[in-house]
């Protein structure tokens, strides 16, 4: 790379970090003393009885679904492309290309919906937009420029696939992919800065007057937790959608060879989805801990106040995702001849997963009526109440993650017989890792009950460390132990139709879950556009009921599914050739 290129990249970085160095110098003096706008109820445009909130909500959520997919697939693609280089297996490369083709169709729709979101915000919430532009100034221009760069790198990455497929050229291609992902993630981080600023404003005084740099507003307390959470969630989401596509193709195909290909694609996608999903609860936990640290009120509103029931729905959604992903893995044991010998463990894993699901589902601090308190015999249920608090839930989540990883490990082991001399000792170490780790998780959970509230949070750290130790330790041991292992044939395509429906559960539940979490995140601001700085005085400044939110989320999810069906159809249309055209040519 030439020096001029490096300088250009550095300049772009500086502009991103602190664009006010260039853009804000002239008007900063005027803006510094001006607080956030204070629109009255009458200042919000009313257009023909249209619900402004529902329009903006739908556009924002749809844009997020599409953007998550469009950002996730290139991540997915570069990882699988890398796998093709490492393993020399062209299937990975073909799969990555196939999915980039789908992204091409989804990309323009993402931009279209993003434009709709911007328009609806400008029309219905002009004062908020005016304020956000004042705070983030030139960064919004950087965003637009990066969007252009994203488009260029995306097209170059896709269309150069075959031209840069072999030898050293492959590394050039992957470098373009890396640039594409870097730009994509930067775009996401910038958008996250605006959203997190609305929750935990920084770089402004209590009246909302801009006192800091754009970088200070960007680096607000919830920015990084949100970045990590969305990054991991995007990986899981992309994997889940690709898995859903593969499952559909598996069911639709009659050709056994193609069926085998799509079965393999479904397995790989599910693996990536779980890989992104496993650390997600920890990222979510960090985000919530930072919310509490920023504002206890906001944290309590979420976990113990009017939004508390939402987390019961979240538990149901994540529970179904866990059960579906595990069911798919268990079904996969039939692909190998040795799978049956591992199948006997499935029932025990199922008990842990279902048990953990039920504990996670148990509510604790909820708003109750006098009658409900009377019926319950207190504010908490006498027997089930203790299962509702964090030590029990943390224990349940960690055990569910450990046993989900175990399901994956069983399938992986079923197709490989270790040949190293220390295989027996290696297996014993893996078993010991599980046993000690599980004892530690349960023990820390029990400790959480007998320690004051402030230390309960601390008790979750050894649980997370135990879970990660089991997973990482097992992967490392397996890596060495299964080197040169005798590979058993994997009968790709030997799967039941029912197992493919488990793969559909993932994208549907993930999409609905993302909609729900968007509703929660936005509701945490209660009746503030920008928390504590700019009040929302619009007629719809209240938190909608759970049922109403469920209706909107379901409608948006259905819309997204329809778009995805259209995108998949488009990509297949591109492969279809009219009969006889080849002959004619």
């Amino acid at each position, binding site marked *: 790379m030439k020096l001029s290129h490096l300088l250009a990249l550095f300049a772009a970085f500086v502009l991103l970090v602190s664009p006010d160095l260039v853009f804000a110098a002239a008007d900063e003096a005027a803006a510094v003393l001006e607080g956030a706008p204070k629109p009255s109820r009458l200042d919000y445009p009313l257009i023909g009885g249209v619900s402004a909130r529902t329009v903006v909500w739908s556009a924002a959520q749809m844009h997020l679904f599409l953007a998550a997919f469009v950002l996730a697939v290139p991540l997915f693609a570069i990882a699988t492309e890398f796998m093709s280089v490492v393993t020399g297996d062209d299937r990975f490369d073909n799969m990555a290309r196939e999915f980039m083709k789908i992204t091409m169709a989804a990309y323009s729709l993402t931009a279209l919906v993003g434009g709709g979101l911007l328009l609806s915000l400008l029309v219905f919430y002009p004062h908020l937009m005016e304020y956000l532009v004042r705070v983030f100034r030139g960064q919004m221009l950087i965003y637009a420029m990066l969007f252009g760069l994203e488009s260029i790198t995306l097209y170059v990455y896709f269309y150069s696939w075959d031209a840069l497929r072999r030898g050293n050229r492959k590394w050039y291609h992957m470098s373009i992919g890396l640039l594409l992902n870097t730009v994509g993630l930067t775009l996401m981080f910038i958008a996250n800065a605006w959203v997190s600023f609305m929750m935990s404003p920084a770089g402004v005084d209590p009246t909302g007057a801009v006192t800091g740099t754009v970088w200070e507003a960007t680096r607000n307390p919830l920015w990084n937790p949100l970045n990590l959470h969305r990054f991991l969630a995007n990986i899981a989401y992309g994997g889940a959608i690709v898995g859903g596509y593969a499952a559909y193709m598996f069911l639709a195909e009659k050709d056994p060879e193609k069926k085998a290909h799509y079965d393999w694609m479904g397995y790989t996608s599910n693996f990536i989805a779980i890989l992104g999903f496993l650390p997600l609860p920890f990222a979510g936990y960090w985000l919530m801990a930072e919310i509490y640290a920023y504002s*206890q*009120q906001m944290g309590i509103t979420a976990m113990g106040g009017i939004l508390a029931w939402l987390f019961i*729905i979240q538990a149901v959604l994540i529970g179904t995702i866990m059960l579906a992903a595990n069911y798919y893995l268990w079904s996969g044991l039939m692909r190998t001849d040795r799978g049956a010998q591992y199948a006997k463990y499935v029932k025990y894993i199922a008990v842990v997963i279902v048990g953990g699901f039920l504990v996670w589902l148990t509510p604790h601090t909820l708003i109750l009526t*006098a009658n409900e308190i009377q019926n319950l015999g207190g504010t908490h249920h006498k027997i089930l109440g203790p299962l509702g608090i964090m030590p029990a839930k943390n224990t349940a989540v960690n055990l569910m993650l450990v046993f989900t990883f175990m399901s994956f490990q069983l399938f992986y082991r079923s197709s490989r017989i270790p040949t190293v001399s220390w295989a027996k000792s290696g297996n014993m170490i893996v078993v010991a890792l599980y046993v000690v780790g599980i004892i530690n998780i349960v023990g820390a959970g029990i400790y959480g009950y007998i320690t004051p509230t402030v230390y309960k949070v601390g008790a979750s750290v050894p649980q997370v460390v135990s879970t990660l130790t089991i997973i990482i330790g097992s992967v490392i041991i397996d890596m060495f132990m299964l080197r040169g292992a005798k590979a058993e044939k994997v009968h790709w395509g030997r799967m039941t139709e029912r197992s493919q429906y488990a793969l559909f559960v993932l994208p549907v539940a993930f999409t*609905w879950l993302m909609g729900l979490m968007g509703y929660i995140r936005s509701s945490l601001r209660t009746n503030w556009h920008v928390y504590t700085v700019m009040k929302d005085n619009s007629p719809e400044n209240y938190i909608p009921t759970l049922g109403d939110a*469920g209706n909107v989320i379901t409608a948006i999810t259905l819309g997204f599914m329809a778009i995805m069906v259209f995108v998949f159809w488009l990509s297949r249309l591109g492969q279809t050739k009219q009969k006889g055209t080849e002959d004619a040519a």
Partner: protein
Amino acid sequence: MTFLRVIGFSVLLLLGYMGFAHMLPQVVPDTSEPVEVSTEGLDMDGFIALGESIFKGKGTCTLCHNGMGRAPDTLEMDMAATYPARLADPRYKGVAAGKEGPKAIEEYIHESMVAPSAYVVEGFGKKGTNDTESPMPTVNMPPIELNDVEMNAVTAFLQDLAGLEPTVPLPSADDAPVAEEPAAGGGEPAPLLTSGEAIVDEYGCASCHDLGGSGADLGPSLYGIGKRMTRAEVIESIIDPNAVIAEGYEADFMPADFGESLRGSELLVLTDYLMALPDAAPAADDSKEEPLATTGLEAIDKFGCAGCHDLDGSEADIGPKLNGIGKRMTADEVKTAIIDPNAIIADGFEADMMPDDFADQMDDSELSLIVDYLMNLPE
């Protein structure tokens, strides 16, 4: 077919999630506009009550000051002993350091609201700050935004809680009004009630107390209450009904959450209304002289059945649920249960709870209307 099966499966799953969202309790939002209530002329008892209402409501203090361990449980602690100990703590360097007495405690409480980090109780500081920084928000800043009158009311309440005579000044005509914000939640409008009659009607006081000619006797008659109790005692009886039990009545009978459900101004308006009630029900209030009900629903409303029975969502549970009663009892049994309520006692309920003089209060036509109405009530 595969396409349709997959779409059908996915849509069913989505509808399942949506249905579950509807099955859970719906927290209905308050969409009413903020209302400003004048505090002019309020006496100290009313001011203390207002302070309690703000403490538990707009101030959101009980979100953390409860038994969960996030902040000192102010309502349960012995604050009479705690305040002097805090002032004497060598770690306390605030405005009241080295001082004693109620005025110093007022300064300490006020400081803890406007500068929470001036003194952090051991073990309650932000993580990693060694109890030098409080996680408590400054209450006169957003999002809580209490004004001076509201903070004084909270101070008066906290001083009263510690058995001290409040030292804060009562609000004057020049002071800012108390801003009653609608609760952050979600859905149906819940307008602020501004008359005693409306509040009594909304909360169903006459279902258990003799009021407005209801003749109910599950709780003491409210007539003449202004002569039997002080204003503060009436407020206490509403907020904490088990604190003092009138002779001949039982504890744990009256709902204990009125302090949370009534807004501060509503509590004051209700108290003033009750204090001004005459010694006995006026003759005009006698139900025999009310016009006869002409429909079952009118008769049900007139005799306040839904105050004790769960009827069309009233959720009262002092008596058995009335929806679906036509499937459980015959018309004659329902009639008997009204005029002689102790003749048949449903499982899980006690005798002598329902007034046994409906035969005297009701016209025969009203009794028939009620029985017909109840027999046709759906589940």
